[in-house]
């Protein structure tokens, strides 16, 4: 029953988010975004064994999202009442940035994620963000907001991997990974929504694989990843880690290469520098994660040793990370 309720609320949140994409008025965009967030609350609260921690995470998430919504609504009202475009745009920009969790408004991300279940981490960290990022181009004609988003995105791309290094808990690690990728998504939005949608799809699928594997092992701490991650998923996890490291010819390298190419066409030196710096730090972080995962003293089942479903998932993950990069490059 609980699973059914989680699915129902999730579907309703998804529908509200999709509806948001087709709204032409900023007011209705705000309404749909908030409806989507509200429907997520029961989904995030669902726990098989209720304990205080779920309340802490969901409460933090709700308060922050509520504050962000207040700022957006305040901006809308201000624009409607006194046509103070700059001030209202700044308020709305602040609200959306808070909802996205971009640096320096990212403080809530790790605090919430640590108390979420893995499904919640995927939905909030990947699923919800890809819809909210679609609102960023609304402010592209306001220079103050455009620059603010740009700098926050650059900051997120560089700060995120540095914070990942210091993560003790797996969920905290995922939180900062989400911050990093949000930065990439926002940067992509400056080059066109098609880049955002393509990158969002790729990011969601990769995160889905990653989160599912971590959930199946009930991984809690980074130092225990090697022993907690199931053996039959290790090959897939290694592929994901190599992809996120930025090694060619894996998927993440190809997506970053496209961003660099687009930046070069527009002579955006800061973007190129930020992407390369972020990639370098990401490389070091994920090499560290790779080592933790592959160094396990526990003798465990290896490649293709799980059930059919597990093996299919593992192989799908490997194929996705190894070959979709080439496919994406050719399609683009």
């Amino acid at each position, binding site marked *: 029953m609980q699973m059914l309720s989680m699915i129902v609320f999730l579907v309703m949140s998804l529908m509200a988010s999709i509806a948001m994409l087709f709204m032409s008025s900023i007011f209705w965009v705000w309404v749909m975004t908030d409806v989507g967030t509200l429907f997520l609350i029961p989904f995030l609260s669902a726990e098989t064994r209720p304990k205080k921690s779920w309340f802490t995470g969901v409460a933090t998430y709700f308060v922050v999202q509520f504050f962000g919504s207040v700022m957006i609504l305040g901006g809308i009202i201000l624009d409607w009442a006194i046509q103070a475009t700059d001030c209202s745009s700044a308020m709305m920009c602040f609200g959306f940035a808070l909802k996205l969790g971009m640096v320096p408004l990212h403080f809530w991300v790790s605090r919430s994620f640590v108390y979420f279940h893995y499904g919640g981490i995927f939905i909030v960290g990947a699923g919800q963000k890809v819809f909210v990022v679609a609102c960023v181009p609304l402010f592209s004609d306001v220079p103050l907001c455009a620059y603010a988003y740009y700098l926050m995105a650059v900051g997120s791309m560089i700060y995120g991997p540095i914070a990942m290094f210091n993560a003790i808990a797996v969920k905290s690690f995922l939180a900062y990974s989400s911050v990093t990728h949000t930065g990439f998504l926002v940067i992509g939005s400056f080059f066109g929504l098609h880049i955002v949608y393509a990158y969002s799809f790729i990011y969601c699928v990769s995160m889905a694989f990653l989160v599912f594997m971590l959930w199946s092992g009930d991984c809690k701490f980074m130092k225990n990843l090697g022993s907690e991650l199931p053996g039959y998923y290790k090959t897939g996890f290694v592929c994901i880690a190599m992809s996120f490291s930025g090694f060619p010819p894996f998927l993440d390298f190809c997506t970053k290469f496209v961003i660099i190419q687009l930046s070069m066409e527009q002579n955006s030196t800061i973007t190129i520098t930020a992407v390369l710096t972020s*990639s370098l730090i990401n490389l070091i972080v994920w090499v560290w994660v790779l080592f933790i995962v592959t160094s396990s003293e526990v003798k465990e089942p290896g490649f293709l040793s799980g059930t059919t479903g597990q093996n299919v998932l593992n192989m799908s993950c490997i194929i996705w990370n190894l070959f979709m990069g080439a496919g994406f490059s050719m399609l683009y």
Partner: protein
Amino acid sequence: MGLLILMALNCFCVMFLNKKDQTVAVVNCFGMWSAFSLMYWGGSGVSRESLSELFCVDIYSSSMISLSLWICGISILVSSCMINLRGVFNTYLVLVTLLCFLLVQCFMVNTLAMFYVLFESTLIPLASIIGIWGGQIERVPSIQYMAAYTVGGSFPLLLIFTTMEVHAGSSFMWFISMKTSLNWLFWGGCFLGFLIKLPAFPFHSWLPKAHVQAPVGGSVILAGILLKLGGYGITRMMMLFSYTLESFGILVMSFSIVGSVYGAFMCLRQSDIKKLIAYSSVSHMAFSIMGLFSCTEVGMVGAYIMLVSHGFISPGLFVLSGINSEMVHSRKIKVMSDGVRAAPSLGFFWLVMIMANLGVPPCPVIISEVLSVVCVIALYPWVFVLLLMYFILSGAYSFSLYCQLTRTKKKIKMKVFFNEVTLKDMSALYFLFYPLAEVLFKWDLWAMM
């Protein structure tokens, strides 16, 4: 193209063999592929052959391809003693074969974009080999160091070929030579990644760390072929962008001369055999850099003689150090002397390899050193003083190494583990020494005419 198809088919067939037979089968495959690769040695100098839309070979790439296949086969041969390999040995075979496959393609592709992708991809199997079979916990920082240095250093190259793709529509690097004067920032971006890979002074600090942590097979591949990727990359970039390179080349050559002296000096101070061989590689690669950046035909020939010869000698030293250190379970030179005393034939092999490393005739290294020295002195004769210092220091560390290995008297007798050395390790030495004779007699292969 035929070589790649042959490799893929052979690997597919090997999969169905017994686990025990797979090692021998893979080693034999590497031998066969090396023989097949000799078909690509079409002609010397400027001869080229286009194999398909994606691949093109000339003498520089075909010599590197043959070297890759040979060295990877040797790497499996010396690692087949499973004492120092934990986990599933077949994983090692897969990683080495994959690495070789990537290397062969890297030396054959005709676009800079694909070359970059393959160049970076070779890091993955090597990092895996060091990570899985490395000796100590410090292998993680060494992998991070190596990866950060290599990937970070080649970011400018990524930007360069991206610019080529964006503005010119292609990064095809054969049959094109830009006649445009370019600034030093561009030259730095072009060559930084390759200079780090070689490694050139002052970007060499990752190499001793990587060698110390790598297993014997990993060190053989790293020293034997992966460092040569840098030299090959420089050659290809020079095909594209060498107009007015001379002034930048003088700067790089200056650093290399200092680097050769520095490397030799550091060799004198080492007590760990692997670090000593690593710093010796830094010294020798400096001569390749001098030859390449002299922008002369003589320099190019000297550089490739060094690259290929070093590709056999340095792995030979690592194989010997692996054999010796397995016998006494230590990499300290003074402790290894117990192994040499217990097996006097090792002393002979050490002598031969040290002399080859030093460049004693008839080893082809002497030809390379002479040609490189000629190129450098032609620019500025007083550089000979520094080169003389290098020759003295290299003689000193070689002599010191041999003396420590064969002459040290210890009061405490160490236990010697004869059973941890197999015939395959010794046969690897023969397979590494024999090709040097081939290089000696065909040293003018890389000449333009």
